[in-house]
Every structure is written in C-alpha cells, then in structure tokens.
C-alpha cells in the first residue's frame, strides 16, 4: 500500500487570524487515517475538520494535520430510537439534511451548520438551548478514537470514562475521534415557532430572559456600540420546534428582515479591504439592525435555517474583515453586573463589535476544558484592530476571571496560559487524564502549546 501523501497547505480558523503553513494529509477512509498516523514520522499531529473554530484550536504550525472532512460515512442508525453512529467528518448540516425528513433533529446546533461532528465534540459546542439540552457532548453515547498509542479504542460513560470525559470539550488533544454515536432528537417539523422582542437595555434583556424558561431556544443580538441608558439594547429571540400543523403556516417575520440586512453587509466576497468595517459603519449597521425590527413583540413561524444559522447563507462572510481577519471574544460570566462592566469597557474603547450575541446558559458545567457554565455569555466579533484590541481583550480577561468566568477556547487565539488556568479551575484534572492517554504529547495544537496543555 502506498504511503500517505503530505502536502503543504495554508490553514486558518474562521477568523483568518492566525494563518499557518502545515503538512496536511486528507484520508478518504478510516484505514487511511490510521495509515496517516503511522506515516507522521514522529511529528506531532492534530485533526482538523472544516476550520470553523475561530482561532488556533485546529492549527498546528510545527507538526502535521489530518484533514478529516472526507471521513463522513454513516455507520449505524436505529429508526426507532434515533440513535446514530457516524464518522467524525460528517457536518451538522448533513445530519439535518438526511434525518429531518424522517423526523429527527440534531439536539444541539451551533450558529453554523458547517461544522464537523468531531469539531462539535472537541469544542463541546452549545446552542440556543443550553438550559434545556446542555451541550453537544451530553448527547454523545460513545466514541471510537485513534489514540497516541496507535490503538483504536471505544469510550463511553461506562468504558474508559476518563477518556470520554476529557475528549468532550478536549479541543482534539486526546486523540482523533474516528466516529461517534449520538442520540438525535425527535421533532414534528424543522420549523421554529418563534417570538422576537425588541428590548431597550440590559435590564430588559434579563427580565425577558427570566420569563422565557419555557422556550426551548433563546438568543439575543445586542448593540454594543450604545452606552448609557441604551447600553445593551437589542432583539430577543425565543422559539421552539413547531408542530406539523404550525409548520404549514411558515411566514416571513422581522427576523428574516434583519438577517437579510446582515447578509447584505456581510457578503464579503466583493471586498478584500480593511476599510469596510470601522466604527462608523458598525454603528450604522447596529442602528439599522435595531430599527428594522418593529418595537415590541412579534410572532412568526420560520424555517430552522434563518433561526439557527442566520449567516450560513453568506458564503465566506469572514472575508468581510479583509486581510487582517477578525477575532471573536466569547466569554461567560456568572454575574450579571460583570456583563455591564464588560460592555462599558468595549463602548469606551471605541472599538466596536459588529455582531454581538448574548444569552443565558443553564447551570450544567461539564468541567475540564469545556466552556459553558451557569451565567451569561456574550460573543463579540472585532475586526483585527491589532495591538489596541489585544490590550483591551487582556483587560476583559481580567474582568471575566475576577468573577469566575471564562473565555471560549474554540474562539480564542490570544489568551495567556496564566489567565487560562484561572478561568478553567479543573484543567489539572483534565491534564492528568490527557497525560495518561498521551504521555509523549503526540496530539498538539498551537492553542495547546500557548496554554501550556501539551509540550511546547
């Protein structure tokens, strides 16, 4: 059998910062994946799906990367229970496409459908339903993994449960996930019965959020340019899967109008400049976005795509930030006051975030390197303003760590090792498990080296 082909490719996360050159292999099957592992010539290794994590979580500059996007076979499916085993390179979108017509939905979906299942497990992604459904990892029954020893091992909550625990949210550092068994969620339709409500400030957001506990999915967009009495104004969206009868009344609501506006602005293929997004244009966009939505509440039944994946319709919207790329900052803080402090720092910095998303998580905390925990999460997209932005993010880190919050590693490219240790108190237990399964540090990433999780 021929040896693995390694080709030098430029890889970047969704933020296009940083960009690194790495030797890559792209296996077409599980057996070729095992082959690539053996043909790595002693180098460190990392699996890379579709590059939808934002920073350097799926990058490895000194080492080799296995592109897993061609590993997308569906291996087992039980029509009665919705239990499914698929290879790690299958995307969330593909799962929905195949199983929604049969009455099944993916129980936890992120803001884009173009993520692989392996990535969803590695980042232990959350959706708009964290309070009700937890994270993606909570719906994984078992995984088959290629380990540092070269063995293929199955793990679950009963079998090698330490490995199972450390792999969920483990940022791809415990081995290569070959396939996983997940429990799909039964739905009557793919439509979402939703309400969108304009709110004037952060207090109103928390109030509506508290009244929305019987909605399965909740998320809000906020304008983080505004300060003072209007600080934290935005649009609250809450919804649940519609019944088959409701699905027949699909309508065009205000959500589509604001999504359409964002899509037009974000259609970045025409631009390769750094001038498009600056404080002035972001302020204009935020103003327009807010006012496109009628004041008060609005009821509609919409398709799942505009509700869950509003930006997927714009291919490569990350290019709107130009060559410099952008950085997303997503944090969770257990205290509401901290949200106010953070918004204040941002609005005073004069560095605007284009799209800011806020929501409240449920109380589930998976531990290890997994991000979600009880509190309020805020996700901010900043054009790469360079040094001033990095300095401000360091300041935000302080505020977040101070109150026991944390930054999402799946979206990070600049957190310090010291700050990471303050934010993830159970990281040492995670490290012990990782060391047990990969004592030589075969699996590494630029993120893991920066945070001191694997040998430098």
């Amino acid at each position, binding site marked *: 059998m021929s040896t693995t082909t390694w*080709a030098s490719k430029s890889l970047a996360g969704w933020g296009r910062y940083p960009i690194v050159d790495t030797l890559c292999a792209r296996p077409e099957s599980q057996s070729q994946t095992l082959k690539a592992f053996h043909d790595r010539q002693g180098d460190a290794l990392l699996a890379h799906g579709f590059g939808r994590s934002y920073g350097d979580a799926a990058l490895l500059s000194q080492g080799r990367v296995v592109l897993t996007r061609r590993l997308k076979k*569906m291996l087992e499916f039980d029509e009665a229970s919705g239990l499914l085993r698929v290879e790690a390179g299958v995307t969330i979108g593909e799962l929905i496409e195949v199983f929604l017509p049969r009455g099944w939905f993916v129980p936890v979906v992120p803001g884009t459908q173009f993520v692989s299942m392996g990535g969803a497990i590695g980042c232990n992604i959350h959706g708009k339903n964290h309070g009700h459904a937890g994270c993606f990892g909570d719906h994984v029954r078992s995984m088959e993994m290629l380990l540092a020893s070269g063995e293929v091992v199955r793990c679950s909550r009963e079998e090698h449960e330490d490995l199972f625990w450390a792999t969920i949210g483990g940022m791809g550092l415990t081995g290569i996930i070959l396939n996983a068994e997940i429990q799909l969620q039964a739905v009557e339709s793919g439509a979402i019965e939703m309400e969108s409500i304009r709110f004037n400030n952060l207090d109103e957001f928390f109030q509506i959020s508290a009244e929305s506990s019987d909605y399965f999915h909740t998320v809000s967009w906020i304008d983080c340019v505004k300060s003072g009495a209007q600080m934290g104004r935005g649009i609250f969206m809450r919804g649940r899967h519609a019944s088959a009868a409701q699905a027949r009344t699909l309508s065009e609501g205000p959500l589509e109008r604001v999504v359409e506006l964002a899509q037009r602005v974000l259609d970045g293929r025409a631009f390769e400049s750094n001038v498009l997004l600056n404080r002035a244009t972001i302020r204009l966009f935020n103003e327009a976005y807010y006012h496109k939505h009628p004041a008060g509440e609005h009821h509609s039944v919409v398709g799942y795509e505009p509700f869950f994946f509003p930006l997927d319709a714009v291919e490569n919207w990350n290019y709107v930030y130009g060559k410099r790329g952008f950085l997303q900052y997503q944090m969770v803080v257990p205290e509401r006051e901290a949200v106010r402090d953070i918004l204040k720092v941002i609005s005073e910095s004069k560095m605007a975030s284009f799209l800011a998303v806020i929501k409240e998580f449920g109380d589930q905390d998976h531990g290890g390197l997994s991000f979600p925990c009880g509190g309020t999460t805020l996700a901010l997209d900043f054009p790469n303003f360079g040094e001033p932005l990095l300095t401000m993010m360091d300041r935000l880190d302080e505020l977040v760590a101070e109150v026991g919050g944390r930054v999402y590693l799946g979206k990070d490219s600049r957190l310090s090792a010291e700050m990471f240790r303050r934010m993830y108190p159970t990281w040492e237990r995670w490290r012990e498990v990782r060391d047990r399964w990969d004592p030589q540090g075969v699996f590494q990433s630029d993120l893991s080296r920066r945070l001191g999780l694997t040998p430098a």
Partner: protein
Amino acid sequence: MTVLILGATSPIAQAVADVYAAAGFSVALAARDVEEAGRAARDLQIRHGVEARGFAFDACEDFERHAALVSEVEATLGPVDVALVAFGFMGDQQASEEDFEKARRVIEVNYTGAVSVCEAVARAMESRGAGSIIGLSSVAGERGRASNYFYGSAKGALTLYLQGLRSRLASKNVHVMTVKLGFVDTPMTFELETGIPVASPQKAAQAIFNAQGRGVETFYYPRFWGGIMGVIKSIPEKVFKRLSL
C-alpha cells in the same frame, strides 16, 4: 434498478454511488478493500434507504472472476442497469521507466483490467438488450506526454476500446459513455498547486449521472477541458515534444 460501481472506494466512485442511490438505485460496490466497500454500502443504506452491498473485486488479480462477480451482483441485487468503471492507477512515471513490472501494473489496471470487466458487463447487458456502461478515462489519454505516458497511453487505449464497444453495442440498445476527467479534488490532485480550477467529486458525479441519463457518448468534465485538449491536440508533434508537459 441497479448500479454497479467498480473501484468503489475512490472519492469520485463514492460520489457517483451517492447520486445513484439518491435516485433510488440499488448499489453494488466492488473494490479491493471489501471492508471499506461494506462501510460505504452501509452509508448509502442509511442515507438513502436503498439496498447496497460491498463485493470483493480486483481489476487484475484474477480476470476469470470478473464474469462471476457480475453474476453474483445480478443474483443479489438484480440486473445491472448501469456499470461504472471507476478504478485507475496513476503509478509513478519515473519508477515505471526503470522497472517494467511497475509500468505493466499501470497498463494492466487502467487497460487490461478495465477491458476484462467491461466485457463481462457487456455480455450480460447485450443478452438483455439494455444497460449503460460508463468508463472513466482521462484527458491524459489524449496525447502522449513525457511526464505520464504509461498512464496516458493506457487511458488512451481505454478510450479507443470504449469507442469500439459503443459501436458494437449500439444496435443492442446498450449505451456506452466515455468520461474524460480533468482535475477533480481527489487524492491524485491533493498535492497539486494548480491555477486550473479543481472540481469537487460531488459535482463531477452529478454531471456523470446527468450525462448518462441523456445518453451522452463522450464528455469532458469539467467541460472546459474539451477546449484545452482541443488546443493541446492541435500542437504539431515537432513543437509538442519540446514543450515540457
């Protein structure tokens, strides 16, 4: 309806299998790696709810087995309506120049093996007076080039063979289609740094399915390769051999 895919583990073959399964065909996946073919078959069953099975097949290990394979597929999944010859082997030009055994393998996989299995399929289709054979040839078979003439000549011979087979079966209501592929995003092109666009296996597969449905006899994919090859074929030999192509 049944489609037989010969050389079923390549990305193009799998993409073609997926398109036919989506259209409701039962799928026979024949490959050397029968375990992987079985996994691919399971995948088609889950995605499309069709019957699909993996079969052991080697293009040149055992030519006598080719007819037996066709019978086995037909006994299990029914008469083969469409057969795709998808396997191929690029080989290494340099190594082939130094060692004829290497060259021979390139010739046997791409030509002899393909002819052997096409004949087996053709006999079954001819007796029924129905069916469609699709052969994946290559633009490399249009002109002998210093950099890959073993592979190119075998594919060129396959193109001629398919042409002859098409003539023979035309009166028997059996369709034969020659597909000449340019760059498709497969392991063969993964390393290439090229200014020429590389097509996805999914798009290539859809194009093959559509063309077969319309009864096309020869087609290039991506289509602009027809133009490129037109130019390349028109360069006089005297000039062509000086070009380092």
